[in-house]
Every structure is written in structure tokens, then in C-alpha cells.
């Protein structure tokens, strides 16, 4: 789609061996528009375009190739490099129980991701424990308990206790019972809610999770940058899970999250069922963002 649009935009600009500034700027105007339409953050898109511009100007254009194709290839490759990096797996290397904490905004899909990760781990032979650390949302404990039942993973629910204590007690129980992986499902919250963010900081200090994953909706708009910055600054995230990727959101938030935190996107949610968890593929994401 982008290549087609660029081909028509650059139709009359035949590159003579090298990409001129004029051709590159013309092409990048369309690329920038595509990225903003895909929800890439305004500033992130600006920085990205500037980097690509430097790489593109002066690039060789073979006789058989159109200038648009060269620009799109440079953009696509740069996007893949930015999105990619380390492998998308959980760090299960710690001896004893691996504690994985899930955080994010309201309704982003944390509880469902907890269930998905639990199923994923249990099917790899890991003794897993789900922990209901959301004491605010009506029936949050019931929701997680039902998910645990569906996949035969025990769920730790302690009504009346505070989240920090719940997580601490769960970790103790995990150590006693030789549990391999503990998944802490926390309540959705704003990155600007000082009290609720402090609660996450307290859990982290008390329990020292091996992984802190930001669960973010693939359709998040421009604010992806601010929420990522804040969660990462306070918690030093180990990775991101992008949910609801089975929809038609272009997912530019992925680039924003990655650009702002530098942390890897480890998994994507591809549906409501607990088996709908897939590894993150940077090249597929790049094509999706560019449309």
C-alpha cells in the first residue's frame, strides 16, 4: 500500500543513479503520514524520519529498481531493526521461582495475558502459580480463578489483604511449594496516578520480580509514549506484551513503546482465548505499521 502510494508520488522523479534530497523528502512525507495514521507518536515519527533521511540520501538506485522501492526498503529495514533486537522469551533462568509481574493501563488485557502466560508455562512443564493482586476491580479474583480453573493452574487469592502483602505471601508460598513461575496480575492504573504507581514500586521492592512486563493495547494512540516512559522510569520494565493484535489496529504504538523504553516486545495477544499468545515478529509488525 505504501509502496504503491510512493510509486505514484515519485512517478515523475526518476532517480538518476542516486537518491536525491528532493526524492527522499517527497517520499518521506508519505511515509510520515502513513506512520501517523498508524498511531506512531508524533515525536517518535519525526526522529525516525530524520534518521531514515540521512541513510536514504545518496543511496544507489539500480536501473531495474524504482526509487520508491529503495526508500521503502530503507524505511522497512530501519523499522525492523528498531522493533527487533533481543529474542522474545521470558527469562526463566533464576533458580527457584521466577516472578513475573504484569502491569498496565485499565482494560489493556493483563488478566488475560496472565492466563495465557500461565498456560504457556504450564505446557512447558513449569509448575505455575497465578496471583490475584488486583483488589479493586469488582470480581477480579473470580475472573482470575476461573481462568486458572480452565487451564488447571492454581490461583492465589487473599481477600482483605493489600496487593504488596498478597504478592509477598504468594512468593513465600511459591518457594515452599517448589513453584517454578509466579504470575502477578495487578490492577489497571494510570501512569499519572502517583499512589497507584507507588503501589507497583512497593511490590517491586518487596518481591523483586524477575520480569516486569507492560501489557499494552495494540490500538493505543499518541499517549503510548507517555505511559511507557512513566512505567519504565518507575519500574525498569523487562519487556512489553502487545494485546488485541487480532484486530485491524496498525499498531504504531509498538514503535513508540520500543523507541521510548528500549525494552523488547516479548509477546503479542492474538485473541481472547488463553492459547492466543504468539511471539513478536518485528518484520511482520513493520509491514503492518507501514500499511
Amino acid at each position, binding site marked *: 500500500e505504501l509502496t504503491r502510494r510512493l510509486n505514484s508520488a515519485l512517478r515523475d522523479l526518476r532517480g538518476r543513479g542516486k537518491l536525491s534530497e528532493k526524492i527522499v523528502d517527497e517520499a518521506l512525507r508519505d511515509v510520515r*503520514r502513513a506512520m*501517523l*495514521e*498508524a*498511531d506512531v*507518536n*508524533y515525536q517518535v515519527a519525526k526522529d525516525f524520519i530524520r534518521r531514515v533521511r540521512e541513510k536514504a540520501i545518496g543511496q544507489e538506485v539500480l536501473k531495474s529498481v524504482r526509487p520508491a522501492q529503495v526508500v521503502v526498503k530503507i524505511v522497512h529495514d530501519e523499522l525492523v531493526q528498531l522493533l527487533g533486537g533481543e529474542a522474545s522469551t521470558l527469562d526463566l533462568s533464576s533458580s527457584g521461582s521466577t516472578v513475573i509481574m504484569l502491569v498496565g*493501563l*485499565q*482494560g*489493556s*488485557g493483563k488478566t488475560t495475558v496472565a492466563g495465557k502466560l500461565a498456560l504457556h508455562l504450564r505446557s512447558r512443564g513449569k509448575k505455575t502459580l497465578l496471583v490475584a493482586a488486583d483488589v*479493586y*476491580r*469488582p*470480581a477480579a479474583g*473470580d*475472573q482470575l*480463578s*476461573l*481462568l486458572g480453573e*480452565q487451564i488447571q493452574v492454581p490461583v492465589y487469592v487473599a481477600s482483605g489483604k493489600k496487593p504488596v502483602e498478597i504478592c509477598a505471601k504468594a512468593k513465600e508460598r511459591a518457594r515452599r511449594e517448589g513453584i517454578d513461575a509466579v504470575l502477578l496480575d495487578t490492577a489497571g492504573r*494510570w*501512569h*499519572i496516578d502517583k499512589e497507584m504507581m507507588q503501589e507497583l514500586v512497593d511490590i517491586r521492592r518487596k518481591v523483586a520480580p524477575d520480569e516486569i512486563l507492560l501489557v499494552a*493495547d495494540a*490500538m*493505543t*494512540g*499518541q*499517549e503510548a509514549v*507517555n*505511559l511507557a516512559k512513566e512505567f519504565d522510569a518507575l519500574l525498569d520494565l523487562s519487556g512489553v506484551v502487545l494485546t*488485541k493484535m*487480532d*484486530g*485491524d*489496529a*496498525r499498531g*504504531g*504504538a509498538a514503535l513508540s513503546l520500543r523507541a521510548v523504553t528500549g525494552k523488547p516486545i516479548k509477546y503479542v495477544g492474538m485473541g*481472547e482465548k488463553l492459547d492466543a499468545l504468539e511471539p513478536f515478529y518485528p518484520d511482520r509488525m513493520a509491514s503492518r505499521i507501514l500499511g
Partner: protein
Amino acid sequence: VRGHGCLDAELLEQMEEILIRGDVGVETTAKLLEGLKEKSRAAGQLKPGQILAILRQQIEEILGDERSKESSLPLSSTPHVILVAGVNGTGKTTSIAKLAKIYLDRGRTVLLASCDTFRAAANEQLEIWARRLGVGMVKNQPGADPAAVAFDALRAAQARGIDVLIIDTAGRLHTKSTLMEELKKIKRVIGKQIQNGPHETLLVLDATVGQNAISQARLFHEALGLSGILLAKLDGTAKGGIVIAIKDRLNIPVSYIGIGENLDDLERFDVGKFVGALFS
């Protein structure tokens, strides 16, 4: 962004950034800036304060809607049926509880119906809200046909002479045709049982969602015919500017805004306040 007459390029770029970062989107932003350039052409000299005023006025013109000037709680028949739909996790169940409270505060009787037969503990979640509100709730058997539950709830509301019936549905992606068909069936069943039912069909949008909200609005509107949007989670940092594009292209007004997780956190949409917040 090129400069234009008395509008210098830097100022236009600042305006563009504010609008894009408010999730207004590329196309609508371009349209607003184009309108600004035309007005500046006509006016000759424009001060920066005037530029902001022109943009605000353009947006208010798009968002303004006679329908929202009607009595804020139209009750056309007994019961007044409100069908609530939307993508996963946008805030439907919570918003329904808040909406019920608004009606209760005005002395109306309310019945809630949980037609989410899929999500784990969906019944339990709505039940807790119903208990807090002191209203009845029709629950479902997980896996049951949501249209059958809606039908039962409507019959119950009619039998008891309830003023307002609010129907909660499962979250679903607009791209899943079988799930959209399920919604259409719920609507058909209601329409057969009561004239003009459902009297309101609200799409709950998450204010933190970007351009995909347009696709959501379009497909839910095609399937159900929306009477309005409930823009939830506007108490964060997202501006929800996407509703401008939705109103401009689909003529669907915003009816309510959700500004928190508690029962009192729902307000009727105020265009002036919304546009003010967009530029703050």
C-alpha cells in the same frame, strides 16, 4: 507544514502537533488547518490568540449536535432500552453501572442485563455493581445465547414496569463478523419485542485508543446504527480527539464521557469543555 500568508510555518506546525498528539488524526488535522488558512486569507492579519479561537470554533462546529441539546434523559417508552457495545476492555460494564446511577438519581427504576456470556466472571462483575446500586440484574448462563438473555430481560422489564433497561454485551473486535452478527441478533430481538427498541445504542470507546476508533465506530455503526458514543477513560492523559473525526465522517455524537472508575464518574458530553481540554 508550509507557511501561509500571515500564518507562519512554525505556528502551523505547533498547531499540527497539538492536534495529532490529541489523536485528532492526519486527515482531520489537515482539514482543520486548511480551514484555518482560508479564514486567515479572508481576514488578512491574524494574531496567535485568534488562530486558536478559529481552530476551537471549527472543532466545536463539527462536534456540536442538536441531539445532545434534547432533554438529557429521553425516556421514550417503558422500558427505555439502552444497548451498550464496544471493543474489549473499553469500559462498557463499568459505564453501565455509572449510567444506571444517573437514572436512579433522577428517580427512575433501572434493570441491568448481563448479555456477556463469554468473559470469565462477567456476571459476577456486573452483579457487584447491581448490588452497590440496589438494582436488579438479569444474569446469564455462560455459553447461553446473548439474544435470548436480552429477550428475557426485556420481558422482565416490561412485566415489572421498569423505566430503563441497560444491556451489557461482551467486548468484541469489530473485525470479527460472527461476533458482529451476534450483536445484530440481539438488536433484532429487542426490536421485535418493543417498538423502536433499542431506543439508544451506545458505542463505548476507550479515550486512549488512536485511529482504530474510526474503524470501530464505522463497523459498529454499520451493524447497529449507533445513537451515540460513550468516551470512557478521559481522566487520563489521552485527549480523545478521535471523536472529532468520527463526528465529521459518520455524524455520530458523543453522549457521555467516563472520567474514572467509580459510580459518579460519568458526565454528559460538554463540547466547550472537551475542546478546551484538547488545547490545554
